[in-house]
């Protein structure tokens, strides 16, 4: 399931005038609910921006809650591919690779995760603009932890 799949699903949701759509497979769960859809059965989860549902939901322990983002803009969340210690800049004291508002390209280094004394560069998966930084410099991250949100171009 990638961004294109999600776009296709959203097309279908619009076309068929669905109120809700949910799919769950192999540990991945996507749930879409259109703005304005009445929901009777269960309490409405608070603070869930409609578009947030588009982000691949990580099964890892939740990191910081996603910050509110512009409605209607696709959002990609970059998660930690390995466990280790996270560094936001190349060297202590130097400028961070990326901050909120930084324009990023696919393949651009966003941060470094140190595992077994090896520095692993974590690259951006798409072109866009950093919408959120979920992690602090020098802190440990687990596999699947949210690192960055990127407003996709």
């Amino acid at each position, binding site marked *: 399931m990638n961004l294109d799949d999600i776009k296709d699903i959203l097309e279908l949701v619009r076309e068929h005038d669905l109120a809700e759509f949910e799919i769950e497979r192999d540990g991945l769960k996507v749930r879409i609910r259109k703005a304005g859809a009445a929901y009777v059965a269960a309490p409405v989860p608070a603070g869930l921006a409609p578009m947030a549902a588009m982000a691949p939901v990580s*099964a*890892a*322990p939740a990191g910081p809650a996603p910050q509110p983002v512009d409605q209607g803009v696709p959002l990609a969340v970059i998660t930690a591919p390995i*466990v280790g210690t996270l560094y936001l800049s190349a060297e202590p004291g130097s400028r961070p690779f990326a901050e909120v508002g930084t324009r990023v390209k696919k393949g651009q280094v966003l941060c470094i995760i140190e595992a*077994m004394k*090896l520095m692993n560069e974590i690259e951006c998966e798409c072109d866009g603009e950093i919408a959120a930084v979920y992690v602090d410099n020098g802190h440990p991250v687990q*596999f699947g932890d949210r690192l960055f949100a990127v407003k996709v171009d």
Partner: protein
Amino acid sequence: MFKKILIANRGEIALRVICACREMGIKTVAVYSQADEHSLHVRFADEDVCIGPARSADSYLSVPAIISAAEITGADAIHPGYGFLSESAYLAEVCEACHIKFIGPSPNVIRLLGDKARARRAMKKAGVPILPGSDGPVRGEEDAIKIGKELGLPLIVKAVAGGGGRGMRIVRTQEELPKLVKAAMREAEAAFGLGDVYLERYVEAPRHIEIQILGDHHGNVVHLGERECSVQRRHQKLIEEAPSAVLTNKQRHKLGATVVEAARAVEYSNAGTFEFLLDGTGNFYFLEVNTRLQVEHPVTEFVTGLDIVKEQIRVAAGERLSVRQSDIEIRGHAMECRVNAEDPVVFTPSPGLITAYSVPGGPGVRIDSFVHSDCTVSPYYDSLIAKVITYGRDRNEAIARMKRTLEMTVIEGIKTSIPLHLRILDDPDFLAARINTSFMERFMPDKHAGKNKLAESA
């Protein structure tokens, strides 16, 4: 003593280690893959770290992920459990380099005993009885005939690159030896692209007997008696017991002493198991050493009253063993059934949601498990969901308790091997302890089970 131990494993054995740590007042770190997020070992560890996706290679088998998890949590030791990285000399080495104690033997010992040929030579030197064999590939027909005469009959021809019974032949007369060696070579060449074969004495219907040892860093090694694990299917043990119904006290002490000597010779520390084949005339043949905790360690704990995992932790921290050989007394009889999430007839895995789970108690019952009602058995890992261990004053009482425990166990939502275990527990040969590594063939669905006769236990 350690302040915090990371458990590089999952499932029941991760919980088992957590139990030992809690009893010793040591903090624990659980590591888990995304598939195990809701597992009990995550719930009951003091800290937990997600180390990767469901696939073992990217999580439980990832040395960098595990070392990183230990570093970010400040764990001062790693317990590897069994399976996964438990016999990884590499992990043990990296631990050494990172100043994290690996709870197991030294990397050198793991490497030595993990190499079949080197282990065989070391054991031979230490006086451990080994299976006579060609000590390497035969160089041709004439060489085979010469070696065959030296070894005696029956023999087995095995492909060096072999596996799954291919490239194997049993030789019962010297006349058929050249023909069968050539056939095995052809088959090995076709199957593996390498025609090298070697010869070994063939043991008919052997029993699988193993000796549990414990060693510390002060030169003390003790053995905790034997386990018999002859009830196995494709080298997967299904039922284990201690003591073996056929060992005399004299045999037990002699084999135990031999193993302790061999362990001292290679400077073995921590827990280990020396596996042997026992033939029909009372001869033991060394198979291999498992340089880790075994799945079936609870049967030994039941009859000795010792806690093997705690001893592992103590000796890894540099303490002396808490017992001397003279303190160790085997009392009663214990048996373990490995309850797997699989079809009890055709052995296909049966992962899924356990909708109901209840196991009876009563005297002499120990259940090591990580499942519960409303828990999902993941398809990504091995199918062991519970170890049911029973204890009795004698073998019959242990069996009677095992039967009633399994009969009164409720597991709904998935299939389990319990019906198979109950059939075994009713088998007259099993009840009379007339078992060997071919015993399980009678319960196999395929009529080509005979092929398994070729494979000795490993």
